[in-house]
């Protein structure tokens, strides 16, 4: 109990916890789960956008999308490394992903059905991710916080890029405008769901707040996102697909904000639990990559061993 109090005092003093520091098992477990989930989201998140790399409509966009998807892989790599400082291997985490034991962000269980999805994902999904992640740059666990600083920098670039894709579409042909609106219609609600259940339903929130793993509630972040995004949509000439959305001067402590209509949490839980149209496809794609690559990883290991043995023999 004294240890717990001392730990909490360090947290409260905004000290960073480092891998070699003693930490409560629950703290460690929460971080492993959250960082792992976050890493998996980056990896699985390569798939929906990767779906359009081969069809990108201009070489400039093709290169930018490729670079973006590559960045996501890079984020996965930092995050797996951060989790590894807590004593779980990447292999272990990968197996948990492939077996369905570990989760990833449910947004990636939606399919990308048009080029506009690439713009909308950059703008909304990366936008929502940033809202979630900026506070994580001040997370109490040092390696996670440092990884998030790099991640956030790249994500804002992606978000601007996504916004620009949508803007280009909205300045384009009627078909392009329709494509953008259609994509917004499909991604709007899933993007709002990215912040997780309402605070009243959120399982891990309170303890995470105390440990300063989390700094804002799901609903507060969601509101921030909405308030930032709705004017952008208006500027672009897009209609947010929420008939109940109204300006409410009383929100945000009287500074006003957009009040949204009810979120379909049944759909949220259904997709989280595996019922989205792409859940199986996503895991299958990851599993296939992993299994097809087994011989390559084995070859690399075998070769490294041979090399080491030869070096020893030569010495």
């Amino acid at each position, binding site marked *: 109990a004294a240890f717990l109090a001392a730990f909490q005092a360090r947290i409260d003093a905004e000290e960073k916890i480092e891998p070699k520091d003693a930490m409560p098992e629950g703290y460690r477990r929460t971080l492993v789960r959250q960082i792992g989930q976050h890493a998996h989201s980056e*990896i699985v998140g*390569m*798939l929906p956008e*990767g779906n359009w*790399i*081969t*069809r*990108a*409509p*201009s*070489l*400039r*966009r*093709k*290169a930018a999308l*490729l*670079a973006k*998807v*590559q960045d996501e*892989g*890079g984020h*996965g*790599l930092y995050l*797996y490394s951060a989790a590894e400082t807590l004593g779980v291997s*990447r292999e272990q985490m990968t197996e948990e992903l492939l077996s369905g034991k570990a989760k990833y962000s449910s947004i990636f269980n939606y399919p990308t059905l048009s*080029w506009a999805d690439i713009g909308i994902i950059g703008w909304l999904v990366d936008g929502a991710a940033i809202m979630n992640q900026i506070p994580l740059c001040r997370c109490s666990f040092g390696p996670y916080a440092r990884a998030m600083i790099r991640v956030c920098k790249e994500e804002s670039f992606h978000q601007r890029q996504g916004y620009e*894709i949508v803007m*280009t579409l909205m*300045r*384009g*042909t009627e*078909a*392009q405008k329709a494509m953008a609106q259609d994509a917004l219609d499909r991604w709007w609600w899933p993007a709002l769901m990215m912040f997780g259940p309402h605070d009243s339903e959120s399982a891990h929130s309170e303890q995470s707040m105390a440990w300063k793993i989390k700094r804002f509630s799901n609903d507060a972040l969601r509101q921030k996102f909405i308030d930032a995004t709705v004017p952008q949509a208006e500027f672009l000439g897009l209609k947010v697909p929420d008939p109940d959305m109204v300006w409410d001067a009383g929100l945000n402590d009287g500074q006003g904000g957009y009040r949204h209509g009810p979120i379909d949490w049944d759909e949220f839980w259904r997709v989280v639990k595996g019922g989205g149209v792409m859940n199986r496809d996503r895991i299958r*794609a990851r599993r*296939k*990559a992993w299994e*097809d*690559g*087994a*011989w*390559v*990883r*084995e*070859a*690399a290991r*075998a*070769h490294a061993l*041979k090399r080491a043995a030869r070096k020893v023999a030569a010495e």
Partner: protein
Amino acid sequence: MSEAFVTALLELADDHLVLGHRLSEWCGHAPMLEEDLALPNMALDLIGAARGLYARAGEIEGKGRDEDDLAYLRGERAYLNCLLVERENGDFAQTMLRQLYFAAFMEPYWRAAASSDDPVLRGIAAKAVKEVAYHIRHAGEWVVRMGDGTGESARRMAEAVEELHRFTDELFFSSPAAEAAEAAGLLPVRAETRGAWEATIRTVFAEARLGWPAQVWAQQGGRAGAHGEALGHLLAEMQSLHRAHPGAAW
């Protein structure tokens, strides 16, 4: 002359775009996360070079065709890439060997291009020569790992050699257009890179314990637009969206 130079630039640009596209097909499906970064990385280098080359070709041509017109609105018979780069990815052994073969050719080529009479090409070459040195290193290391790894990986590498070696001769073949551009001092002479190429490959093969293929049926035709059947499918996919919206800006 300028017409031949345009054609020769398109040959080079098509090589880069097609191979970059092939690599990009791996994105998210690589055998390990590091390769999910490395493969797009190389793809980006190649597509970047392709863009510069297309832009230059369009500029010299002077008919107002930009990089996207050249990439998205030419059909299979108008694509002039060599056959090697269009081959399907196959397994990781084939992908890496294809990369090594191509990079080991481009490295001396870009080095020689530093003395091209075309200043834009010199600029592209200066950037590309560094990138391609990394491609040789990366792909070469993998060829060694797989060639001298497990029994299965060695078998797959040997199969990759058997599959792909026959497309390497074409790298050193200059089409009439390329010959004209070479004679004019605008482009390096392809045949003159063969020594450097073979030295690179032999070094890697020795370390990878791969035999040099004895007798192969050298294949060519790409420079005349005579491809295998794989390219058409690649282009159908690549160009589908662009062609579905004629004239749209993206």
